[in-house]
């Protein structure tokens, strides 16, 4: 039964209590593929670290005395949903038990400097190897030992260390398997210490776990431990694998004299409690790395191995402005870490955002294989039928010694008209590994040369002088005053007539003087007579022409009690003179009309002061 143990991050919980914004950002879980393992078996431990940034810290494995620990790769996935980044990295380790019984994998911690999270300890039961499994391990032991091992055995050596490669001639980037075997025909006092070799112009990838077995060489039974590495050459020319070293505690074979004063100490040494420290080294191995042949295709970018390529999209019916996760997967065997993204074609119909790559490596059967996924975020610019043309990928196949070119099938999209706000970018991957630290986090720079009209218009409005904005207020006040004035005029018509009376009379006097000058004194007198009656009517608010002169004078006295007798007398005299000359034009000469106009003018000045 597969056992699953999960732990929550105590630090993240603490963070959630202390600071809501930093809640549960870093978590770590650990699980083993089983809870019981035989002493000669292997256990897979997967530690998954999740966080809210593009990179998460590597877990810090505690000191595990009860297991030998080998790293077996990692896989990573990143998702960004509505701008929130979640990164999850799974680190896989192979554990080989060293002791029988109930063993514990201690808590594994991770820390990003701000937060710390830890798993719960995991209990594992290590049992004795069953008969069947012992037999199954034998085929390894029955492998034919290398010539160097046989030569060493011939010399009668009890312990020796041998290194061998599966090929001494290889192309740049081609996998070379290195095997380092430590043989012993005697029990060791303690676990030997292994110092790996150095490499010149080579990079290495470990091929866990350590294989243990037994073999017979020249009639002697040897137990051996084998460590394997996959090597890849970086440049053509000679390359070298330096010596590997093993330091072991070997029981002393010195005879023990029972009369020796140190008898007990030496006796204990014989029983394996102490021993002699011995160092074993391999010889350097020289390799010849061949350059890749000429004639590489244009799309070749250094990939060596055997690969396939495929392109997929998470959604082929999208709206304009919506994001599409477009993935190009390069899968196969070879140094996938060195595989670069195939050249992506220019797509004028799409906005293409930065790529993310994920790596998933497998080391089954000692072959580095797996897949590398390059994810592009495509955003269609407009509705219509859109397509991503075939993407080409070229690699060198060392088995055939030739270049091969592959291409993906074209991928078509039906793009519908998009919503304005349809921008939800959502890309996630089921499995993956390291992401290029190119910062695919922030959105790309904008090619818009100017801002939208609204902010510019707002800036223009705010840039106007302040007094411009007082204009509407002035207009409002002015219109208010005009409205009030209009209402007042409608409510008090006589008041306005009275105020206008003098102006009208003065105008009439002017017109009469022009008529006199033009030689029309009769018309001038008629004009003055009508004007005088209109003036008195406007002042009194009643038509005085309908009354006799005496009645009119009484009315004026009643309407304006402050009017003087002299003024009333002047009114009567002017009225009589104008009436006389109006109805007897022959009596009026040019000089008389002019006198009347002057008298009218003087009387106006006097009346204006009194008729208030």
């Amino acid at each position, binding site marked *: 039964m597969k056992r699953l143990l999960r732990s929550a991050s105590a630090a993240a919980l603490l963070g959630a209590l202390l600071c*809501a*914004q*930093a*809640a549960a950002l870093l978590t770590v879980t650990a699980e083993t593929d089983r809870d019981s393992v035989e002493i000669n078996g292997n256990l897979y431990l997967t530690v998954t670290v999740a966080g*809210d*940034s593009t990179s998460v810290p590597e877990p810090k494995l505690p000191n595990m005395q009860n297991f030998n620990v080998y790293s077996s790769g990692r896989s990573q996935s990143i998702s960004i949903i509505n*701008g929130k980044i979640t990164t999850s990295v799974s680190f896989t380790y192979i554990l080989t038990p060293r002791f029988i019984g109930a063993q514990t994998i201690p808590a594994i911690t991770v820390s990003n400097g701000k937060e710390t999270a830890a798993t719960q300890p995991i209990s594992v039961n290590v049992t004795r190897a069953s008969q069947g499994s012992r037999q199954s391990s034998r085929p390894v032991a029955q492998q034919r030992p290398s010539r160097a091992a046989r030569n060493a055995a011939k010399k009668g050596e009890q312990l020796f260390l041998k290194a061998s490669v599966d090929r001494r001639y290889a192309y740049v980037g081609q996998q070379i398997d290195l095997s380092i075997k430590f043989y012993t025909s005697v029990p060791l006092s303690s676990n030997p210490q292994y110092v790996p070799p150095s490499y010149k112009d080579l990079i290495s990838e470990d091929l866990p776990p350590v294989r243990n077995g037994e073999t017979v060489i020249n009639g002697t039974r040897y137990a051996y431990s084998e460590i394997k590495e996959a090597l890849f050459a970086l440049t053509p020319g000679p390359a070298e694998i330096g010596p590997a070293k093993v330091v072991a505690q070997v029981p002393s074979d010195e005879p023990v004299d029972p009369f020796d004063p140190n008898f007990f100490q030496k006796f204990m040494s014989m029983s394996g409690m102490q021993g002699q420290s011995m160092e074993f080294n391999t010889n350097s191995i020289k390799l010849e790395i061949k350059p890749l042949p000429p004639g590489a295709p244009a799309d070749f970018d250094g990939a060596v191995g055997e690969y396939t390529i495929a392109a997929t999209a998470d959604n082929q019916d999208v709206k304009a402005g919506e994001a599409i996760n477009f993935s190009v997967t390069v899968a196969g065997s070879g140094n996938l870490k060195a595989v670069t993204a195939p050249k992506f074609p220019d797509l004028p119909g799409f906005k293409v955002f930065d790529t993310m790559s994920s790596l998933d490596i497998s080391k089954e059967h000692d072959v580095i294989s797996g897949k590398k996924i390059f994810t592009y975020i495509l955003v269609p610019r407009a509705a219509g039928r859109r397509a991503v043309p075939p993407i080409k990928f070229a690699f060198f196949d060392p088995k055939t010694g030739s270049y091969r070119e592959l291409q993906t099938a074209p991928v078509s999209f039906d793009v519908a008209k998009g919503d304005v*706000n349809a*921008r939800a970018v959502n890309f996630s991957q089921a499995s993956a590994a390291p992401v290029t630290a190119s*910062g695919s*986090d*922030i*959105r*790309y*720079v*904008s*090619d*818009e*040369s*100017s*801002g*939208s*009209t*609204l*902010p*510019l*218009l*707002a*800036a*223009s*409005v*705010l840039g*106007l002088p302040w007094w*411009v*904005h007082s*204009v*509407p*207020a002035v*207009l*409002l006040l*002015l*219109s*208010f005053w*005009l*409205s009030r004035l*209009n*209402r007042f005029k409608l409510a008090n018509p006589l008041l306005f007539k009275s105020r206008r009376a003098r102006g009208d009379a003065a105008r009439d006097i002017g017109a009469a003087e022009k008529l006199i000058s033009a030689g029309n004194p009769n018309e001038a007198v008629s004009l003055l007579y009508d004007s005088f009656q209109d003036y008195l009517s406007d002042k009194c608010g009643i038509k005085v022409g309908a009354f006799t002169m005496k009645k009119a004078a009484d009315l004026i006295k009643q309407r304006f009690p402050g009017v003087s007798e002299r003024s009333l007398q002047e009114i009567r005299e002017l009225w009589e003179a104008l009436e006389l000359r109006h109805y007897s034009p022959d009596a009026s000469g040019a000089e008389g009309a002019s006198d009347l106009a002057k008298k009218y003018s003087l009387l106006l000045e006097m009346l204006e002061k009194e008729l208030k």
Partner: protein
Amino acid sequence: MRKLLFILLLAAPCAASAYDSGELAEFNDMYRTGRYQEALDGYNKIIAAEPQNPWGYYNAGNALYRLNRIGSAVYDYSKAFLLDPRSQDIRANLDFAMRQTGQRLVPEGAPASLHYLYYFLSYMELKALALLLFWLACLAGAAAFLLDGNRWAPSAGRGALSVVGALLLTLAWLGARQSSPFFDAGVVTKAGGTLMLSGPGDNFKTYASAPEGRLVKILDTGDETYYEIGLAREGIKGWALKSDIDRL
């Protein structure tokens, strides 16, 4: 009045042609090829020529982010956001940069739609809108007075009252925006953060530090060398060097 409208209508295209748009493509190409400092210099030229263009700040923010100057990136993204708060690109990058410094654009627990509505118009746009509504209310009111007694007068009066209502709402919105973390604010742009002192001088005790990229409230600008700043989330305030903080 006709001249004023003419100026307003011409304002946008005039501003848009403040620099050669071909230069932008050149700066973007520098950015694309990883020459971030050169791209940043170019974007700063655009900002100098056209300070109301949010994309100048946005692109400069991107270049700064790539140069690992997170504080200055937050500042430029904030400037872009204040000019065009509706842009999804600007919001996304500002939020991303703020998260790098332990902040969020949308406060935790606040509905994103409400936050979007709250910032739908920039502060400058809100002020311009309030001014335009003021104009409209005055002109509609003047029309109502001048049409006094006419059958159109009640309609003009109701229109004026509606506009006055809209104006009051806009003023309330403007008032509410003064509680925004971006109002009277600044960003710590000094690498490694800034020290907060208990007074405006280095003889005062240092009792807190504000990390680079942190959005801070500027409470007092009276001192020549120091700002009095406040950290709302922590509920603390102190004095920090003006040279460490860029005011929004």
